[in-house]
């Protein structure tokens, strides 16, 4: 049994989340189960307010589930930890630290016992290089653009060497060109490092382009997994070549149809 779970890597089992109690009780998630293989890139898509972020926060350990379990490599997850690094929606960099120090803080905390100071410096630089931010590493978050901040957020998360990378609508607040650029970088990093990724998004193209499987969530309250779609596209993927690709168009159509037909849009509270 436990051997099977290791194989499954990340496993979400019958997860339910209810906020409040009595009259104000609101059921956000109902019976969510999901198996994620090592190295898999999963996109979770749904209308705003459907509980996607709650699901991610529960996997991150930042929010406690009302019932159900999250297992990572066969061990139950209760608390947040660097093995499930989060890239927050609004970057969440500490504004009083430089770009370098923001990443270094994470590196120092996690590798204090296992790496020397010089190694930690190297490791910090290496992760900044992955997102092409070494040139601005002396700057503070207030002095760089939104896209750059998000890249630093990604570098900080990668620097933790997480088992799972959790991306909470990481490119939601960016303009289309910057977003496309960062999507390329994330694809490249995923190809190089083989991370297991859970990404929340409300962008259909982003979901199809980046992920191996798309989890489509029904609208809240009591959101459930409506459908799972495996994206049948080989990697590396090229956004321009895919525009006319039949299976890309089919995947895109499937997700769009789900979002617009099978889950009625309800204005988020």
């Amino acid at each position, binding site marked *: 049994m436990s051997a099977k779970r290791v194989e499954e890597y990340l496993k979400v089992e019958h997860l339910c989340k209810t906020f409040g109690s009595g009259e104000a009780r609101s059921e956000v998630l109902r019976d969510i189960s999901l198996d994620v293989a090592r190295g898999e890139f999963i996109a979770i898509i749904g209308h705003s307010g459907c509980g996607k972020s709650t699901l991610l926060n529960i996997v*991150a*350990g*930042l929010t406690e589930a009302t019932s159900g379990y999250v297992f990572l490599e066969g061990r139950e997850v209760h*608390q*947040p*930890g*660097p093995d*499930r*690094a*989060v890239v*927050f929606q*609004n970057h*969440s960099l*500490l*504004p*009083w*630290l430089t770009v370098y120090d923001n990443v270094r*803080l*994470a590196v120092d*905390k*996690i590798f204090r016992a296992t790496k020397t100071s010089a190694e930690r410096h190297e490791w910090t630089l290496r992760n900044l290089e992955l997102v092409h931010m070494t040139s601005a590493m002396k700057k*503070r*978050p*207030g002095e760089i653009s939104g896209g750059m901040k998000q890249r630093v957020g990604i570098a900080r998360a990668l620097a*933790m060497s997480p088992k799972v990378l959790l991306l909470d609508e990481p490119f939601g607040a960016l303009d289309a060109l910057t977003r496309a650029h960062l999507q390329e970088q994330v694809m490249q990093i995923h190809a190089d490092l083989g991370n297991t990724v859970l990404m929340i998004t409300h962008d259909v193209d982003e979901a199809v382009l980046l992920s191996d499987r798309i989890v489509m969530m029904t609208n809240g309250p009591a959101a459930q997994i409506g459908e799972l779609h495996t994206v049948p596209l080989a990697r590396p993927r090229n956004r321009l070549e895919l525009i006319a690709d039949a299976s890309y168009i089919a995947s895109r159509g499937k997700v769009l149809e789900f979002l617009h037909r099978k889950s009625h849009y309800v204005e988020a509270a």
Partner: protein
Amino acid sequence: MTPGVARLRQLRARVARIAGVVLPPVLMLALLGVVWEVLCSAPDATLPPPSKVVADTWELIIHPLYDNGGNDKGLFWHLFASLKRVSLGYALAASGGIALGVLIGSSKWAMRALDPLFQVLRTIPPLAWLPLSLAAFRDGQPSAIFVIFITAIWPIVINTAVGVRNIPEDYRNVSRVLRLNGFEFFTHIMLPAAAPYIFTGLRIGIGLSWLAIVAAEMLIGGVGIGFFIWDAWNSSLISDIILALIYVGIIGFLLDRVVAFTGKLAGRGTVSV
């Protein structure tokens, strides 16, 4: 255009800019001086005009460092004694206030238990504490320091608590993902995030300290600018009082600037963008 002309223009623009900042207050000061001079030059005027103030206090102005023993010292020594009391009391208030503020800012129960108490205590006027502290310490020096402490601590406590309570949830989440321990959270997240609030409290605190010390020293006696003023009043040396008030104002202004500047240095980059 030759470089010489360009430089001349630049220079002229700079002079104009500096004059624009310096001239208005200087002119205003001169105007007030003239009005004061005119108003107080009448033979039945109760207060001396500025010319008389300068003439009367010339000895004090040019010899701030004289020391004839006892309380007969130059103004520098009086101000120095007051500043010493303020810095001691203020240092205690700052460290105690930040500690208490962190406590009630991070613990709901400490907040519920202490906040009502603080809200009442902070309305007590500084001088009302003096008799009680004289009774407790049986000495003027510690009593004055205590009055400074108790005056300055409330805005520091309250502002620190607000700052700690307002640490964005995002920063807390970052620290939870990184599993920062209590001490790491305190130094890496809490202090820098709350720094702007803490310095607001510190700045109000230093202003209040300086307000309180003059009043307290009038009552406890000894060396100090407050006592100097009271002593001058008892000897009817009105010009001495006016000179002392000018010094008190300037020092108060400088103290405020110093704390504000320190806050600016410490709070560099803490404004979230």
